């Protein structure tokens, strides 16, 4: 009897957790998808016809066991990279990925040169 109760409590606790995990994954995917007909909104934020339909398609694909990458690849094949907020790295967008690091390094180099120059001036 006690074992039965423990099992019931166990299932009651585990199933909502699993469902939450799936919901969390869905929300993450929706947030990374651009609502193409909205002004600066993600699919997660929009209730437009397009966003609602896209949510259904993503939900189906998650239930089929598809990975995030497979879902994004499918949508990119239909709508281009514009559909995702975080596009995959390729030759067309490598600047988008590396420019911030390049600017950081450049800024560091400029600061280094300025400091060295001012030290040299002080020494002289």
């Amino acid at each position, binding site marked *: 009897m006690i074992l039965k109760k423990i099992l019931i409590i166990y299932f009651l606790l585990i199933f909502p957790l699993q469902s939450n995990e799936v919901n969390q994954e869905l929300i993450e995917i929706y947030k990374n998808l651009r609502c193409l007909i909205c002004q600066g909104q993600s699919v997660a934020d929009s209730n437009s016809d397009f966003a609602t*339909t896209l949510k259904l*398609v993503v939900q189906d694909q998650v239930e089929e066991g598809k990975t995030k990458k497979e879902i994004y690849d499918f949508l990119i094949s239909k*709508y*281009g990279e514009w559909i995702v907020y975080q596009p995959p790295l390729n030759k067309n967008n490598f600047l988008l990925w590396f420019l911030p690091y390049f600017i950081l390094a*450049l800024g560091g180099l400029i600061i280094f040169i300025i400091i060295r120059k001012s030290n040299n001036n002080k020494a002289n």
Partner: protein
Amino acid sequence: MKINFSKIIIFSFVVFLISVFWMGLKNNNNYNTKNLTGSEISSFKLPSIYNGDIISDETLKQNQFTLINFFASWCAPCRLEHKYLIKLANHNKDIKILGINFKDKKKNVINFLNELDDPYDYVVEDQDGKTSILFGIYGIPETILINKELIIIKKIVGPIDKKQFEEILNFIQ
């Protein structure tokens, strides 16, 4: 002559930024899904609005050309393009027109077609709209012209106008 490295770096950076902005301004940033032209349509199966018969991509392989038109009775621009669909249906027998009715009520679609005339060889319903995603649709109306091999020849976003109607005619003649 002493070379001022920081000035050269700052100058190069400014030139680089201006070039990036200039290239960005020159590019056409209007979003569309015309890049699907040349690719094969995805497999689909949808029921006919009249008798529930299944129409699929296999059905379309029998046609020389098929014009797939996404429409709805609640869509005002669909009424604007309807006359061109009627003209196409009467003009050329090599082209079949598939109407995919998007998120609509059967009664309203039938009223819509009774009122404006029915140019479609097949009318199917996409109740939840999921099939539209397979075709890269993001608004209604949208139209896709495919050939016998199910390859997309032309994709029209928005209502068909006179120019696009003539382009479709050129493709199929």
